[in-house]
């Protein structure tokens, strides 16, 4: 379990973390989500001891770890750009933490074999990092971090440098790995889809503060702040309120509460269609609908239609965030 108590950190005039407190449950997979500059990486580095907080406390497994050197925290760290030991083979990279701990040679060999198997790099042991793809390098880095059996695994934008296909693959694979090892894991990301897809719990950060801690579904359905509403999933402003694009409706016939709008653009997103419109007051909204519905409406750019928000206040779970 990780306990973060009132941690603040400045870099010169920039306030990276502003009185952040957070608990991470033992054995959970937690995502820290936020835009760049929100302090999420700094928070992770402080937990690992790679950065010292100006004030506040970090507790690991119930003990104050704030003053403990990174070497002694029992924390595994994975960096966005792999941080591979370039002049060592994959085997030696993975074995590094075990050699530091002066484990017997036979035990090291066995553990490295086991880890290479786990990250599907068996047969790559004698290669150098330069001979691996990005995804393979990151898996090697993961094996290296896991080798000394850390009590906490921290990943800083672990898939940020990989291309989209590999990223999706590794994402699912990380979730599976976590389900097998149950190591308390925290990963930092700016990709909301990544966070919502694999984390048990998502911490949304903005400007050095925690905006909300919630499960993926709760985060989307009941965002605590306007920032969360706009950052997690898409939101547009309609009649002064923030709403999801799929909560709006395009109609051709007059209806109560409907406003006139001009169709600007129609985008096909797989099985959904997204229609971008300009309202009568000049503001822009987007409406998401099924393809079938879009086909029925026969929308075309330039066309004047009506936009409304059906079902307001009638048993809906709408987050009523007033802007």
């Amino acid at each position, binding site marked *: 379990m990780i306990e973060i108590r009132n941690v603040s950190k400045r870099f010169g005039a920039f306030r990276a973390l502003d009185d952040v407190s957070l608990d991470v449950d033992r054995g959970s997979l937690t995502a820290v989500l936020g835009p760049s500059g929100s302090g999420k990486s700094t928070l992770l580095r402080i937990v690992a001891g790679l950065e010292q907080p100006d004030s506040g406390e970090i507790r690991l497994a119930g003990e104050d770890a704030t003053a403990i050197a990174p*070497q002694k925290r029992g924390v595994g760290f994975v960096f966005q750009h792999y*941080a591979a030991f370039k*002049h060592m083979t994959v085997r030696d990279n993975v074995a*590094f933490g075990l050699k*530091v701990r002066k484990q017997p040679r036979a035990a090291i060999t066995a553990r490295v074999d086991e880890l290479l198997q786990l990250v599907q790099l068996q047969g790559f042991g004698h290669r*150098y990092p330069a*001979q691996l793809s990005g995804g393979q390098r990151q898996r090697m*880095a993961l094996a290296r*971090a896991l080798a*000394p059996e850390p009590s906490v695994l921290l990943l800083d934008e672990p898939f940020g440098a990989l291309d989209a296909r590999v990223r999706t693959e590794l994402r699912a694979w990380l979730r599976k790995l976590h389900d097998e090892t149950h190591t308390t894991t925290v990963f930092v990301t700016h990709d909301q889809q990544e966070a919502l897809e694999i984390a048990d719990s998502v911490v949304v950060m903005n400007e050095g503060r925690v905006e909300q801690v919630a499960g993926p579904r709760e985060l989307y359905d009941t965002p605590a702040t306007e920032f969360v509403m706009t950052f997690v999933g898409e939101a547009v402003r309609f009649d002064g309120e923030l709403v999801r694009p799929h909560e709006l409706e395009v109609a051709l016939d007059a209806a109560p509460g409907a406003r006139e709008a001009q169709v600007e653009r129609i985008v096909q997103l797989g099985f959904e269609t997204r229609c971008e419109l300009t309202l009568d007051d000049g503001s822009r909204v987007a409406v998401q609908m099924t393809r079938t519905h879009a086909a029925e409406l026969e929308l075309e750019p330039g066309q004047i239609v009506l936009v409304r928000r059906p079902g307001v206040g009638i048993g809906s779970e709408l987050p009523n965030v007033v802007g």
Partner: protein
Amino acid sequence: MQRRPRAGAPLQLGFVTTFLSVLVLLPVAALVWASGKHGWHEFWSVVSAPESVAALKLSLGAAVIVSALDAVLGTITAWVLVRDDFAGKSLMNAVIDLPFALPTIVGGLTLLALYGPSSPLGVDIAFTRTAIVLALMFETLPFVVRTVQPVLHELDREAEEAARSLGAGEARIFRTIVLPSILPGILSGVALAFARAVGEIGSVVLISGNLPFKTEVAAVFVFNHIQSGDQNGASAVAVVMLVVAFLLLLAIGGLRYLTTRHERNA
């Protein structure tokens, strides 16, 4: 599939070959020919004469000592310039190159004024071998600083952090993570420093006193023997210096090859 060479390639190759021939190969050939025209026996007897041996031993010995000192001190200097922040850092960075800009004889003159018989510091090491090492270090330290500095700059700091979180102490991180990465840079610098130190004359000639068997370095030996009309002796010693320098560069090149093995894809 074989890549077709670009249209300009033959011309460029011709230029490089011509320059290399005129500036390097021809003079070297002339030197070897001059030293060998009286036969191998004559060559050997000149080279193995006590004064030649003493001069060569001194130059090579001093170059080895200086290169080793450069490797350590140059790396420390580069480290401080890259990793530490202090007032006057950019000034210090600029001053490092001074020995490059200064004519070597001026450097020698400065050292003589500072560490000679009329030293304002009260340190008189003129006409000793210590003075030779000092002068050579003055001339060659920047080579190592300037080759290690960019490598240190490019170093992946996160690799060091990864090692730290894996439990490695600072000494171990330097030995196992940092040093292997900067070693090719150090070796390049040392190769340049050694080559320069073996043949250095300007900065050494004033402060060493040029006492045969004691403080006469090989380059001064060659100069003195040319002056006294002994072209045979001069060119024979010159060829030995050439061969030693060449072998050393080759050896360091080999070491560099080994230390950068991991960068080449199999």
